[in-house]
């Protein structure tokens, strides 16, 4: 039996009366890339901090490679936080040296390669680096220990598109080498490209979880274009299979969990110019997952 690399069970984290993470259960399998999506304030960073022992869970349990997090965990687990946590007064080289002295798994050759990839000068002080370069340095420090587990909170934050691609490639390369990666990103295209699996958080709760293919296959868009304005839909939007509807001028779109063909037939009966059943991309799935419940005007 393969041991789950990151196992989160019924995790809840409260700050006073505010519940940042609520009953989160998540398993990340060895060698997989799991993307955690969610709007700002959904609880992604708090979940990461709880997983890594940086914040104490209010309830629930967490295991990394089957054991609780201890200092030894960080010999093979690296974390890149969302915000800059580097020491501004230190140089790039001093940070690399600190990494070497504090982690026996630090690989100086790998660090040199990565410094060259991101074109970072060892003598430069962190305060003189751009936001993207600081993110790059945090990534270099994380990757230079050749981690078995990599937790990345918005790893492309502040990077230009060229370096965003480099980060993506480094993640895919690390996973190909056997590393397990848990990351969050607002770049949904990046998540779609890299992740085997996606979990979506909303207000601290896990609202959707599955492989990218499963999620894409689980929903369809039924799109109808009418000659004039969209007619009365006779309560169609109230159908429980419809997750969300959009009306833009003559276009009516229904995001459906199942029964797409039947809903298309019902729309077709209203005499539109065209009706089609379309596949969703990850962005559509994400927006459906985090959108508010169908509003009264949608459910005509």
């Amino acid at each position, binding site marked *: 039996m393969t041991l789950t690399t990151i196992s989160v069970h019924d995790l809840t984290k409260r700050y006073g009366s505010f519940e940042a993470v609520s009953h989160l259960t998540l398993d990340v399998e060895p060698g997989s890339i799991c993307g955690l999506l969610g709007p700002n304030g959904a609880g992604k960073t708090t979940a990461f*901090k709880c997983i*890594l*022992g*940086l*914040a*104490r869970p209010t309830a629930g349990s967490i295991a990394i490679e089957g054991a609780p997090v201890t*200092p*030894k*965990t*960080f*010999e093979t*687990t*690296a*974390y890149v*936080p969302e*915000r800059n*946590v*580097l*020491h501004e*007064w*230190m140089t790039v080289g*001093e940070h690399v*040296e*600190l990494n070497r*002295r*504090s*982690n*026996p798994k630090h690989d100086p050759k790998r660090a040199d390669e990565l410094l060259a990839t991101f074109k970072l000068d060892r003598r430069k002080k962190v305060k003189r680096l751009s936001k993207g370069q600081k993110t790059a340095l945090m990534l270099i420090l994380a990757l230079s220990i050749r981690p078995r587990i990599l937790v990345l909170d918005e790893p492309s934050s502040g990077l230009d598109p060229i370096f965003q691609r480099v980060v993506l490639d480094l993640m895919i390369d690390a996973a190909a080498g056997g590393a397990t990666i848990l990351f969050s990103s607002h770049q949904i295209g990046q998540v779609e490209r890299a992740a085997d699996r996606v979990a979506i958080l909303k207000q601290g709760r896990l609202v959707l979880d599955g492989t990218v293919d499963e999620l894409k296959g689980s929903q369809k868009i039924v799109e109808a274009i009418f000659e004039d304005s969209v007619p009365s839909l006779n309560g169609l939007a109230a159908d429980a299979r419809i997750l969300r509807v959009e009306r833009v001028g003559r276009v009516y779109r229904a995001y459906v969990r199942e029964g797409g063909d039947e809903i298309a037939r019902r729309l077709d009966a209203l005499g539109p110019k065209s009706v089609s059943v379309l596949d969703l991309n990850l962005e559509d799935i994400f927006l459906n997952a985090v959108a508010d419940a169908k509003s009264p005007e949608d459910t005509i």
Partner: protein
Amino acid sequence: MWYLEFLRMRRALTVYALILLGIALALVVGLQLGHVAVGNSVSFGPGGPSDVGFVYVTGGHETKRVAAKSLEFPLVWLVGVAGFLAIFFTAILGPSLNAESEHLDYVFTKPISRARLGASYVLVDVAGLLAAFLVGLVIAVIPLASIGILRFLFVDSAALPTFVLLLGMAFMWYGEKQAATGWYQGSGGKAGVVSIVVFSILSALAAVDLGPSFHATIIALNFLNPLAYLHSLTSQGGTVNEHTLLPVSMAWQIVLTWSIGVVCCAIAVAGWRRVEA
């Protein structure tokens, strides 16, 4: 992670040493120009330094023949100056555990236990305090050497206990700042200024006559006040003054300062390791 704190302390000590060096060089120039009252050079009689009876002190346009004995001074004076500077250095030094509160995501994800991490910071800082003391001592010698009176320095028995007490006071102040701010996630940079104000008020209150119970309370609180231990040092070299603020012997003061420092550092590390990032 001692390396991180070593870099931070090295930076602080460099600034400290440069400031002291600047002051010392200004004093040297002042002495050489004869602006300082004690005279700007000392020369020996025909017999050289072995002719110890008299020396010639030149100040401005005037040269005086004075008994060499009158120029002798004990090491404890230099220790006192260096100790005062080291205490000042400690007071303005940002508390290191609190300084990491913005970087906990970074330092707490290293394969080192938090207790060991905190202890390594404290040990490096204590070594830094000792270094600050020695830097002060070495730099204090420069102006004296420039006017040739360093040879009148003699090592007295009070120097060592005074050195240990002053270093203990610096360590105690350091520990108290760490304990007050280590658990706290906001900026603790103002702790130095606040501690100077609080300790000065506490010392001043000891002189206010507001009844025996108030006085006893203030004296008790002053045992936690590093500045209160300064009052106990006399110009005769570290013996307990009869008008001392703290009614305990110098040996007890040494024990108290170091013990309070150790306890405060332990509290600081215990609080810091529980801080959430």
